[in-house]
């Protein structure tokens, strides 16, 4: 399949049953005489707003640079930016494709004669396939906040290095599960080349602090990838910590009720530190103090106060490899 960018940056045009026809637009910035150096994708899930907002803002900035509107800044390569793959989902605030509830990020590699979301997936993959670097941006679900982080799935050394260019506080390696074989990141991986996944914040709303950090990270990345020059960033680079597949500790609730925590993601915890309290839903009594059983970086915290037995409360990244650990982190929902 060729990249259909002749005159308009539209990847796919589709009809709709009762409303206007719709399309899947892309910002195609920079000279088009070579394959894209970087492809940036967000909004595979319509309720993950941080990535969509950051990519829309970044596209605006890059368009200004490309048109000479930013003194001293220069665009040296071609960049593709798709702020939202699931545009209808975004408009109605739905994670999945609203018509049939399918998860667009479980439809890859897609099929251009198949179901609606398979066609969308095929168009996104075809457009981004030739890019030298590709990044897929996500938030967690609406209940759980993630520290801005890079996720790698059985990566190459090139991907490990590229992940650090973003300067985000954590780079986490994870195994590939059967479910993940239908994601965009996996489709990129099987076709060769370099792909990264970013997780930041939680779905359903915008967290400006995470957005600013993401914006800065992507600017750094574009500079390191040789696409952008002459942009000075005020903030110094942060220390980047890398964590392997068995250095992620999920804290699972054994009590139900109200969960209340004052912690912020990105804090370092000592074993025994307080993570939060659980109160009985009806009686209001304190049911449990939740304390971290390990020392490490708090990479995720529950923001939904209503807690079921078996809910994820927090995720802590540890320096040493864990020996006995439930494999529950494989159920990570956001991506």
């Amino acid at each position, binding site marked *: 399949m060729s990249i259909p960018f002749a005159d308009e940056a539209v990847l796919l045009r*589709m*009809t*709709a*049953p*009762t409303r206007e026809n719709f399309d899947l637009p892309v910002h195609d910035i920079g000279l088009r005489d070579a394959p894209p150096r970087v492809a940036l994708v967000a909004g595979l899930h319509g309720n993950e707003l941080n990535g969509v907002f950051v990519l829309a803002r970044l596209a605006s900035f890059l368009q200004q640079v490309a048109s000479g509107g930013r003194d001293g800044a220069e665009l040296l390569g071609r960049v593709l930016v798709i702020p939202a793959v699931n545009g209808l989902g975004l408009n109605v605030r739905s*994670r999945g494709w609203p*018509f*049939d*509830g399918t998860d667009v990020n*479980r439809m890859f590699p897609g099929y251009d*004669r*198949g*179901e*609606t*979301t*398979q*066609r969308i997936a095929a168009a996104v993959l075809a457009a981004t396939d030739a890019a030298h670097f590709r990044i897929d941006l996500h938030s967690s*679900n609406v*209940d759980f906040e993630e520290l801005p982080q890079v996720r790698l799935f059985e990566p190459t050394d090139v991907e490990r290095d590229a992940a650090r260019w973003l300067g985000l506080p954590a780079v986490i390696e994870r195994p590939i*599960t*059967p*479910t993940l*074989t*239908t994601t965009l990141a996996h489709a990129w991986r099987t076709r060769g080349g370099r792909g990264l996944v970013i997780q930041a914040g939680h779905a359903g709303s915008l967290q400006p602090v995470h957005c600013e950090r993401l914006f800065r990270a992507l600017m750094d990345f574009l500079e390191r990838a040789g696409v952008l020059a002459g942009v000075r960033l005020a903030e110094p680079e942060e220390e980047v910590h890398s964590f392997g597949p068995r250095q992620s500790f999920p804290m*699972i609730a054994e*009590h*139900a*009720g*109200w969960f209340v925590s004052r912690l912020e993601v990105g804090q370092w915890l000592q074993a025994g530190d307080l993570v939060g309290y659980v109160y009985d*839903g*009806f009686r209001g009594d304190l049911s449990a103090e939740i304390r971290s059983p390990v020392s490490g970086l708090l990479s995720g915290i529950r923001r939904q106060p*209503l*807690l*079921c*037995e*078996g*809910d*994820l409360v927090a995720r802590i990244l540890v320096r040493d490899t864990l020996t006995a650990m*439930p*494999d*529950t982190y494989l*159920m990570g*929902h956001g991506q």
Partner: protein
Amino acid sequence: MQRRRETFFSLALPYRERLALERAVFTGGDGPRIALVSGIHGDELEGLFVCHRIAARLEELAERQPGALLGSVELYPALNPLGLDTLERSVPIYDVDLNRAFPGHAEGLLPQRLADAAMRSLDGAALVIDIHASNVYLREIPQVRIARGFQGRLVPLARAMNLDLIWLHEASTVLEHTIAHSLNARGTPCLVVEMGVGMRVTPAFAEQVVMGILHVAQRLGVLDTGLKLEELTRTPLVADDGNVHYLNAETSGLFVPCVEHWSAVRSGELLGRIVSPLAGETLSEVLAPCDGMLFTLREYPLVYEGSLLARLMEVAR
């Protein structure tokens, strides 16, 4: 014959209530046990009705010929009770497909705990039958779907299930998290039955499948071979990925079929039209690509470009 109804797993919800999984167990002796599972998807109700009909047949048997039950029959009608109670396909709150959470984990997240509880309960059964009802969009003829890797053990059982179709499909990595794959991989045979449509029950399909389940139970020694059962009414066609045609919508609109589900169609025959709700025009005519049996037909009329309209098994004339 003993009958008991019990909660085999529960966990606490935030406010006062518990999420409980229930089963009904009919035991006649030490013989083998079979289990029916349904309601993994909260919008699929056909299997709940099959469980009811099997319970009714066993209760009747308890009155008439109690010695005919040599083993056990276990009914798990609602593995996703929150989804069923709130009309949601996935596990509410989590928005996770329970049939992608197997084999689960006892100390994992809520859907994994449900999956683990089911796996532990079903372990060692002579046969598990997992009954699905398609989704709200598509109507399916009673059929069993079998991954190639398990066909040797499962096809002979499936042939006795009084179904219209056996569909052999290639293994798919993403399906490794289903209950059927998890059970089959651990040595407990599991048949996946698809029938009817979401949010509805189709009594005629249920009676057809109930008859098949009783025959299979007899074949496995759960029911006495001396028990007289009605004769099977169906001999299944066998479909595979090579003779199944998918018909996807060429454009968006309202799909109105003009043939009956499970009819024999001729190549080029008009199966339905996609029409515009804003004008009198027909936007697309849907034609049969070959001679065959229409085993899937769209029930929900609104379609987007790409929506599945029908599946046809090619059958030579």
